[in-house]
């Protein structure tokens, strides 16, 4: 085995098994964007600080820039593309961000949305402090955070109304 070897494996992305043939050093974020064409996952800092690349790994939010694709072979990954319904109906968390003006330029938004999905799966009715803690690892440089915090609570309401889980 050498560093140039390509590794063949399957990732279950947004419910669909996807075959990959990539070098070991391919980050999960790059595998999603470059190899699978899912550019909804954004790459900001590439060292785990900005949170833009957050995806769900087996249902839990993680930094996709801090995982090698080969290392999560066989696991389930959910990206922002996996949230909306087949007819384009927004997921409650996306809906909440839209309603609360929780985004402006949108660069950080997929990461926030995925982090909030993870937060609400864990804490369906977060307190203000829990909501703040849940988004503390994501950076936004245009709206500020207050509308995003409102979106967290609005998303919790929408999910409760639908009796749904994020």
């Amino acid at each position, binding site marked *: *085995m*050498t*560093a*140039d*070897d390509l*590794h063949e494996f399957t990732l279950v992305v947004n419910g669909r098994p996807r075959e990959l043939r990539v*070098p*070991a*050093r391919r*980050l999960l974020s*790059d595998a999603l964007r470059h190899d699978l064409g899912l550019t909804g996952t954004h790459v900001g800092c*590439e*060292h*785990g600080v900005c*949170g833009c690349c*957050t995806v769900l*790994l087996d249902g*839990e*939010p*993680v*930094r996709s*820039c*801090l*995982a*090698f694709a*080969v*290392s*999560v072979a066989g696991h389930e990954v959910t990206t922002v593309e996996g949230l909306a319904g087949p007819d384009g109906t927004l997921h409650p968390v996306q809906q909440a961000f839209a309603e609360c003006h929780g985004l402006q330029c949108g660069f950080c938004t997929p990461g926030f949305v995925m*982090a909030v999905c*993870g*937060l609400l799966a864990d804490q369906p009715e977060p307190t203000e402090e829990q909501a703040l*803690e*849940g988004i*503390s*690892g*994501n950076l936004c440089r245009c709206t500020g955070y207050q509308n995003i915090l409102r979106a967290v609570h609005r998303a919790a309401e929408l999910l409760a109304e639908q009796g749904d889980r994020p």
Partner: protein
Amino acid sequence: MKPPPFTYHAPTTVEEAVDVLAEVGEDGKVLAGGQSLIPLLNFRLAAPEHLVDVNGIGALDRIALDDDVVRVSAGVRHARLERHQAVYAACPLLRQALVHVAHPVVRNRGTVCGSIAHADPAGELTAVLVLLDGTVHLAAQRAGQLARRDVPGSDFFRGVFEADVGADELVEAVTFPRLPARAGSAFVEVARRHGDYAVCGAGATVQLDERGRIAAARLAFISVGPVPVAVDLTELLAGAAPARVRLEAVAEQARAAVRPGSDLHASAEYRRHLAGVLAARALQEAVADARDRRDRRREP
């Protein structure tokens, strides 16, 4: 940036992992959660030729409690240990410290053993290991056989990012002793922003006697020296009623013990000042924690 090329190994047993580590020697590095290692690779600050990924070793995905200790194996993520109720009851300092480790999303992937093996001077869990005098369990291949050795937590850290773990060794597990009866603990820190590396952090354990007086008290600090700094307050405080503790004397002992450096985040003086402030705060919180636990035990 992108990580440099490396040869990837994905063992499925501890035996296979230590065989690979023995083969690749100094050119190899263990990959667990990767929340510290992958940034180093992405920055090209490290370029190991081989990565030995232990995420596929099912046997390492284990938290075990017995009458004396909590044993955390190498695959256990911060978030899992943080949420574990029985672990919180047995060893509350773990959750008290874990909530300060980076952000929740990072804790979903980062591992407890990885944080300890990484030996970051700002790593909260390094102080927990030293404060509780836990044990690091190492595995390696010696003469074709799986060999294990244990290192006491108080001897494990050697310097900045340096610990008593050889290039061919795997931190297989770490054990933390249970908190005794009538004891309490706390972890406090100050960071520039929530989730950042601590400018200074302090853990405390306090043992009360039957009358509620202090029988023993210890502190451990992070970010004020190359390795965690332990301070035993027992001589100063033994026999004292918690309300009568002279917190200024506690702060003074803490300030005298630490050896902080200056960097762009904080001056050495400010860190020393914080060590005193956080010493008093951690001690008071640990006393309150000990009383809470005692009161809860009394409830039918």
